[in-house]
């Protein structure tokens, strides 16, 4: 039993990271109706910036904080300079543009920092908690706590501030938003900035568990897509729950299903995506688009 609880707990730790990145995907999807395939690579690039600051001697938390600011501004810049010009184009065009961004960030990171793996510092103490045979690292507890803070913060932002209300309005009805004086373009930039900062945080939290290198976020991105698909691409709550479910399922499948083991774990999110699309295409909490004619 302790073993099982242990596996669930470990799954939650990865799930919290998938959830953060999935939240970033959902933020952008809700504000601009774009699925940003470059989300994970933007996060990886930001993580490199944090690593660079750290190796220059900046304390780890300060490096992460500075990186979040840089990522926020960078996300806004990407929206303004790369996404805005293709706004309103066909979905295929936009998919290609975000795939292009993926390549730019991936190769850009390799060009600047090369492809040799690097050790990213653990921002949490190396302490291990032992509760009745179930062991949790401070890193695991920290990651889950950070996710909770993010969820609370976003909820407060979107439900209880004027700017959050304006962001929701701009996402839902840009035309009416302009007519009440909301600068819709700014709201979209803000959405991309927030998402980029969130992704950067996810990258910095996952990096100590993996190794820092340009392809670091590859599998995390796939898990995040599974999480967002499962929860519903327009539902922040769904993205969080989806992330946790995917994390736990992946870990349990890897442990208890013999032929999957650690090597085939990546199959789990793909199966989740296929199953959700077959059974409930809008995800657990997604809204179905209903059009009155």
């Amino acid at each position, binding site marked *: 039993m302790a073993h099982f609880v242990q596996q669930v707990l470990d799954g939650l730790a990865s799930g919290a990271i998938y959830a953060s990145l999935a939240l970033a995907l959902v933020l952008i999807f809700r504000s601009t109706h774009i699925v940003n395939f470059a989300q994970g690579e933007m996060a990886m690039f930001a993580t490199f910036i944090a690593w660079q600051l750290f190796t220059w001697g900046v304390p780890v938390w300060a490096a992460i904080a500075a990186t979040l600011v840089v990522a926020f501004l960078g996300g806004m810049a990407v929206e303004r300079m790369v996404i805005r010009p293709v706004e309103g184009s066909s979905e295929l065009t936009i998919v290609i543009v975000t795939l292009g961004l993926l390549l730019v960030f991936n190769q850009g990171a390799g060009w600047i920092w090369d492809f040799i793996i690097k050790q990213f510092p653990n921002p949490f103490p190396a302490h291990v908690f032992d509760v009745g045979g179930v062991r949790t690292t401070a890193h695991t507890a920290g990651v889950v706590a950070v996710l909770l803070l993010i969820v609370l913060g976003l909820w407060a932002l979107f439900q209880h501030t004027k700017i959050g*209300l304006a962001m*929701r*309005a701009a996402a*839902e*009805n840009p*035309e*009416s938003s302009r*007519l*009440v*004086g909301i600068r819709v373009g700014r709201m979209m930039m803000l959405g991309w900035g927030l998402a980029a900062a969130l992704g950067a945080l996810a990258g910095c939290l996952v990096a100590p568990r993996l190794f820092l290198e340009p392809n670091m976020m590859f599998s995390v991105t796939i898990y995040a897509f599974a999480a967002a698909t499962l929860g519903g691409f327009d539902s922040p709550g769904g993205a969080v729950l989806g992330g946790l479910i995917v994390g736990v399922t992946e870990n349990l499948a890897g442990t208890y299903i013999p032929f999957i083991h650690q090597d085939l774990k990546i199959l789990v999110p793909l199966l989740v995506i296929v199953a959700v699309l077959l059974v409930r295409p809008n995800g657990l909490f997604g809204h179905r688009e209903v059009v009155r004619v």
Partner: protein
Amino acid sequence: MSLLEVADLQAGYGPVRVLEGLSFDVAEGQTAVILGANGAGKTTTLRALSGMVANKGRITFAGADITNATPDAIVRRGVAHVPQGRGTFVQQTVDENLRLGAYTRRDSGVRADTERMYALFPRLGERRGQAAGSLSGGEQQMLAIARALMLRPKLLLLDEPSLGLAPIVVQELFRTLVDLKKETGLTMLLVEQNANLALDVADQAYVLETGSIVFGGRADEVRADESVRRAYLGY
């Protein structure tokens, strides 16, 4: 004194010209109506006034040139626009829709103003916590007007408020508009296909046909002029 003066307004979408040089004005405290058939350019006129379509010519509002100003700058000057089809934020609550109407306001009276709107439109007060998409068509039109009033506008632009509503609801709506004008002296520019009804509430009327104003004058003159009525208003 004219609150809004429009001179030689031209606008269109891409290569398609919709407005061919309109000139008209709306006096402070008055209600003006633009009448015309489908496709005459009524909606485009209002959209040009709100900065939603690029335009040429000259638009002067409260003494300031607002030609090609951005929509948010125009809203900040006190022009509220109730779009055709109501423009409801269907996923947001009634209360949030009203707060969005006051988005550009920085004063502390917004909360009190939402209560005033609920007093004015009791149906909205009963539904303040509901998603606005669950409201009936008539209620959504009330909400759209209330949302616009939340700006405390100097000028209210109304685009086909009667569209898609049952006749009894339309009458209620127009009664509300008349009351509003009496109580607050609000200046309104109304675009309508329902000429008979619109002329009842208007002081000034303009008839628009394929992008040009073909007749303008006092509302009672328009009503009395049988040739205009027959030719353009179809009754």
